[in-house]
């Protein structure tokens, strides 16, 4: 039992990291970005390709993949999303879904559709014992990096000028622009931040679990389910939601593999029926 819980918590860090970017974009730009799953997958696939085929050392491969994913996110924003999201935010969902389909297919064509896993061993300590559970050390490293980078993101949002401008645009874009903030630039930078952090999540993910382009849809779905559960507008909500989801996912699949998806979705439905705003949601947000 403890090992299942432990693995659930470990996987929760990446869920939280992925959902955080999604929640940020949803909160600041007001759009549901269906290419979010592609960021995850791109981070993983690029890392693997750079590390195994271009001979990059793994940390450098992860960094490069992260940056590339960030650039990709901004490009998508500038070329496609920017034209549409102000007048028709909900249609961005369909638009980004189309982009996700196209990019996934292009990725598959160029890099192959198969699952890939980066086998990494922490030099010296391949495995670690926590209590009675044996865990590959890389999983702990991934967990730590995910936690730290999410923490860095939270700190940035709360304590830097850049973070303040992002929050200003989220709370009231009109006032923000009246105060001299270049709202469009902030939107683009928010997408960059989202792409970077989600790409990093994908890069870390490929070191512990297999990643393939087709998984992008599941990641997008997971991300916004976690955001719904955690509640929009709440940072601790999303983080907690990510961990809860990781644990729920792991335990459900371990103990009841056949009905696990139903259990998870059943739990979500119950939550939505009794608390539509999510765990920590900021009350009834009447957004149209």
């Amino acid at each position, binding site marked *: 039992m403890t090992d299942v819980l432990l693995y659930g918590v470990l996987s929760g860090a990446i869920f939280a990291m992925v959902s955080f970017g999604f929640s940020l974009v949803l909160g600041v730009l007001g759009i*549901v970005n269906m290419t979010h799953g592609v960021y995850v997958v791109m981070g993983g696939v690029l890392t693997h390709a750079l590390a195994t085929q271009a001979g990059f050392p793994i940390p450098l491969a992860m960094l490069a993949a992260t940056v590339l994913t960030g650039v990709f996110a901004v490009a998508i924003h500038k070329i496609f999303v920017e034209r549409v999201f102000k007048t028709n935010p909900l249609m961005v969902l369909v638009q980004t879904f189309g982009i996700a389909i196209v990019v996934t297919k292009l990725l598959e064509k160029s890099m192959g559709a198969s699952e890939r896993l980066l086998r990494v061993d922490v030099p010296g300590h391949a495995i670690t014992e926590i209590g009675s559970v044996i865990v590959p050390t890389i999983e702990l490293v991934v967990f730590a990096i995910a936690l730290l980078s999410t923490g860095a993101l939270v700190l940035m949002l709360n304590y830097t000028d850049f973070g303040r401008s992002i929050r200003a645009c989220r709370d009231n874009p009109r006032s923000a622009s009246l105060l001299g903030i270049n709202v469009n630039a902030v939107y683009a930078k928010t997408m960059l931040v989202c792409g970077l952090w989600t790409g990093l999540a994908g890069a870390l993910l490929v070191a512990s679990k297999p990643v393939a382009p087709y998984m992008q849809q599941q990641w997008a779905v997971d991300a916004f389910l976690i955001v719904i559960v955690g509640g929009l507008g709440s940072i601790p909500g999303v983080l907690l939601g990510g961990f809860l989801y990781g644990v729920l996912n792991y335990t459900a699949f371990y103990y009841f593999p056949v009905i696990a998806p139903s259990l998870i979705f059943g739990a979500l439905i119950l939550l939505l029926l009794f608390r539509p705003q999510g765990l920590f949601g900021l009350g009834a947000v009447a957004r149209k």
Partner: protein
Amino acid sequence: MTLKHSFSTLGGQLFWLLACGLAVALVPLVSDPYWTRVAVFVFINIGLASAWNIIGGVAGYPSFGHAVFFGIGAYASAILTVRYGVPLGLAIPVAAVVAGLFSLVFTPLFKQRGFFFALSTLAASLAVETMVRNFRWVRGLQGTDQGWNLPNDRPVAFYYLLALAMLILCLASVLVLLHSRVGLALKAIAKDETVAASAGINCTRYKVYAFVFSAVWPAVFGAIYAPFLVYISAETVFDLKITLSMIVFSVFGGIGTFLGPVIGGILLSIIDQLAWANFLDWHSVIYGALVVLIITFSPGGVISWFRRSGARRGHA
């Protein structure tokens, strides 16, 4: 009554709908079976898009889980005809009723608006899909089946005429709805729900009407789809892509309008079919790219190319 006037009254529009329907009904006499089969898909797609348009376009509550009603219709039809030997003519209305009752379960979600409504409907429908996938009695004839095999004993022309008949009924009911008090209320709700409520409109009641209406028709078409395709499974009839198709057809043609889903359904179905037939490998890329381009550069849809004001109207 002038010709132009006949396009805007209910009676006139119903007349034109029937006339077009009769013309289309004669097409199988001159076309080959391939295109007749494509046409059945087109009719089903138009019906789905029109139904979604009522809740998503006219009422302004985009439901992202609508494929669930299509799936319920398909499964109901399969279960009734295969397991209980119910004739198709009875299975279709029963499927519609089942979907209508089931849609009432979604009513708590109407407390939310915009994104929250969209995401919640999506989550709810994903839940239903996985439950169907795991509930043996529903999933297949034997406990080990993953889908339903239906008898293949009717010619394509039967499905063509059946789908066309159902489509004409569906579009007629859409026209009646749009011209009624319910249609007015929905348009008011879409414009500004708070003001509508202040004006005395019982918003929740009309939203529920719209939702049930928009759930019943996908079930009808799902019930036709099952025997037409001969085999159904949870993956094929509850697919997220079906919901997204409903949305894309409506948006492409012109969201919130009557003709929008019709035009979108026809054009996009044909494009999709041509892409699949000629560029199989890149078919999804072409379709996805087309969707993206349309939404990026023409959010008002094809209909807006023909209108100067581009404002949403409830009728053709």
